[in-house]
């Protein structure tokens, strides 16, 4: 074993590394890590043509690390200032002791980036907080939250004239969703592409699953879907926009928590597992083009954006 002391050196410049990329087998310093991750997100935006001139993009901004990094990067990558408009939307579910802190971060972040910001609440839209809905019994908190959050985001985005909703889903979220669909035996879910993409870059069109929004409305875009959660958090830390926030009190009992533990463990034991799960699902979605989508539990088309982050 090497002697205790300095971290390993960056493979590109020899400075102290901050990150070991176990999939590619290299060390990166802070500057090279930031450049590398920005390059990968920029490539996803280009490959899937996620930002289109003239559009208004509604960005789901919970105030957590993923959505905060997403807004930061989208603001940074706007093709030409003024050609794409961003509006951040924060949904206040009404979860005591949890949402106040993240909402404050969301407000500060939108203000710092000069992005228009709307806050909508379950209380205003559904007449009740999530805490009250859970206390009344019935569905699992995450199911209730997902249905109402999707509705709140969709309705607010459409009222603002947005054509797409951007969410901060990362590679871990997407791999967890694939595993959850397997565990539920949800074949339709299993064959859905992680990204709604009606017009990919011609160079990649043959291998990108093409999906029009089921309701002919909003596109769902996930510019971070190829970035592991740890790297999103590291990017946030290195750029000073990461905030150590409380965890949702309802998260521990969700099926997603089980899926998370499973894929995180596999990723550690076999680096690259997350990417392989999502790439495999993309290939399957491409092969399954044309299979009609199943309506969601709430009767809404699956075109509504999922809002796990």
């Amino acid at each position, binding site marked *: 074993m090497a002697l205790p002391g300095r971290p390993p050196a960056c493979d590109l410049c020899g400075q102290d590394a901050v990150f070991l990329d176990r999939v590619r087998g290299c060390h990166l310093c802070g500057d090279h890590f930031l450049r590398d991750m920005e390059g990968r997100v920029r490539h996803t935006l280009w490959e899937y043509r996620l930002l289109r001139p003239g559009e208004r993009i509604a960005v789901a901004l919970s105030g*957590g690390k993923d959505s905060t990094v997403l807004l930061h990067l989208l603001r940074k990558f706007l093709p030409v200032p003024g050609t794409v408009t961003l509006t951040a939307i924060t949904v206040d579910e009404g979860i005591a002791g949890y949402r106040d802190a993240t909402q404050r971060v969301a407000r500060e972040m939108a203000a710092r980036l000069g992005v228009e910001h709307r806050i909508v609440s379950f209380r205003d839209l559904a007449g009740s907080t999530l805490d009250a809905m859970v206390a009344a019994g019935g569905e699992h908190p995450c199911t209730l939250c997902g249905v109402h959050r999707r509705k709140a985001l969709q309705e607010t985005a459409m009222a603002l004239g947005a054509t797409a909703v951007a969410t901060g889903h990362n590679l871990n979220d997407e791999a967890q969703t694939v595993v959850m669909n397997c565990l539920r035996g949800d074949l339709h879910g299993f064959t859905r592409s992680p990204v709604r993409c009606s017009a990919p870059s011609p160079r990649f069109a043959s291998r990108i699953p093409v999906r029009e929004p089921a309701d002919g409305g909003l596109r769902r875009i996930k510019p971070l879907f190829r970035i592991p959660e740890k790297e*999103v*958090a590291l990017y946030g830390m290195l750029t000073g926009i990461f905030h150590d926030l409380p965890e949702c009190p309802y998260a521990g009992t969700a099926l*997603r928590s089980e899926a998370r533990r499973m894929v995180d463990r596999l990723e550690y034991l076999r680096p690259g597992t997350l990417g392989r799960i999502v790439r495999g699902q993309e290939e399957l979605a491409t092969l399954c083009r044309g299979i009609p989508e199943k309506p969601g539990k709430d009767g809404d088309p699956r075109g509504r954006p999922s809002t796990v*982050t």
Partner: protein
Amino acid sequence: MKIRLQDGTARTYDGGAARVWEVLLALDENPAGVIVSRNGRVIPEDTVLGRDDEIRVIRVSHGG
């Protein structure tokens, strides 16, 4: 070696010099789900720590 966790608690690792990932596994933390800093600077998981080092462990996995 002293390890500060996110919830404000501290733990010790008495196994002598070790790589970050070895310390994390001893604490039952998955190295793929945490970021570690020493003296305020983020370090990779294969950094060798000394017995007098103090590290901070930040869990990055949240949400429902």
